């Protein structure tokens, strides 16, 4: 059952990833990419990383909606419903993509994978957070709030109104 779900999600993730470069509308490309990310989030849920999986779903939807605004804004044909192409410099892109794929696939096959030692922790999210942040957790939390405050203050000061006309 889990194996079937894994393969369905994996094929869907790659398929929608390919669709990004096949479809002829920027809106469709954006949402094909979102679908691909959601499948990746589903894979995380499948391996038991519940918090990370749901977080990927949440963040990717928000991110791709913001992306949609910018992708449509910067495209060659902003009206968006006209045909367009997502591919440029085909030969070079193909070479780079093929090379990257070959290197990664070779890595999968050639690297000696370590055997599992010990058991998975009861809460993988806590373990992962501890491994990444460790003792600098408090510092990072404070910096996070400071960055957020800076971003908001910058935007508020930079917008056309906001400084003199609330």
């Amino acid at each position, binding site marked *: 059952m889990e194996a079937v779900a894994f393969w369905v999600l994996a094929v869907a993730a790659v398929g929608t990833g390919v669709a990004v470069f096949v479809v002829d509308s920027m809106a469709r490309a954006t*949402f094909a990419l979102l679908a691909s990310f959601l499948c990746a989030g589903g894979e995380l849920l499948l391996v038991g990383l*519940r918090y990370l999986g*749901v*977080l990927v779903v949440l963040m990717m*939807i928000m991110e791709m*909606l913001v992306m*949609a605004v910018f992708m449509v804004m910067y495209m060659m044909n902003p009206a968006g419903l006209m045909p367009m192409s997502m591919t440029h410099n085909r030969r070079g892109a193909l070479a780079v993509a093929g090379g990257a794929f070959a290197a990664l696939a070779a890595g999968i096959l050639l690297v000696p994978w370590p055997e599992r030692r010990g058991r998975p922790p009861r809460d993988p999210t806590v373990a992962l957070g501890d491994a990444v942040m460790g003792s600098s957790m408090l510092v990072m939390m404070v910096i996070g709030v400071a960055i957020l405050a800076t971003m908001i203050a910058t935007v*508020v000061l930079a917008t056309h109104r906001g400084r003199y006309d609330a």
Partner: protein
Amino acid sequence: MVEVLVLGALAVAAATLSGTLAGRPAAAPFREAARLLTLQRRRTVRADVLLTRIGVVSLPMAAALAALVVPFGGRVALSTSVGVVWFNAMEVVAWASVWLVGWGVNSAYALVGGYRFVAQGLAYELPHMFALITASLAAHSLDLRVIGGAQHGLWYAVWMPVAFAVYLVSTLAMTFWGPFGHPLGADLAGGAALELSGPDLLVFLAGRYGLLAVSAGVAVPLFLGGGAGPLLPGWSWSLVKTCAVLSLLVWTRHRLPVLRMDRFMTAAWTVLIPATLLQMLVVGIVVV
């Protein structure tokens, strides 16, 4: 699964209440639903039908998926340790729904409505998220049942009133309802839903009522003590509290004017976010 069906019934009740507050007979929403079902689809020139359909269908689907984690007393359709995050993720699906509907129909006013909602969603998501996290912080859990059970006698709404108020306000914004109905505003002749007709419009609006009902249901374990209460069993107290919150949310539509969102956006960024951060600081200090 009963919990999801109950929330669906509450969504229908919300539509009826909204009609009654506007002075229409109680059967009006059902009559309107029957009318929409028999109506023929309106077609627009060069519409992106696929994206429009995805947008229309994803709204009620997101509401139903969010309803899976809403507890009634101790009962819940899907018990998970990350219910709060899941609920928030499903709320955000509404951004995609409204934008897709606004984009897909290839109509200028609908497009403006779709963009309005992305901006509104982004501005109110942060305070919304902080309000959710504040309750989780106090209960040391992202599980809605644990949060509901952690409020021994003292509801979170009482000792973190700012978070509760911000939750209610940002919920209205996330469900583009009442004072935050600008994305579907009358100044845009109906905004994002302008070109939807017949069954499409029915499904889309039903999804919004569903989201409203689910948001009211989540407020209960987050801030109103979950199923706690004298005499009656837990699920019935949850139901009573959910109905009360839902009525309040529906009521705002008929008593408050629609806010010009571009003006009120500044308030979200400069008032609500600092307020929720301070509230979180206070809660953090008290808890630790």
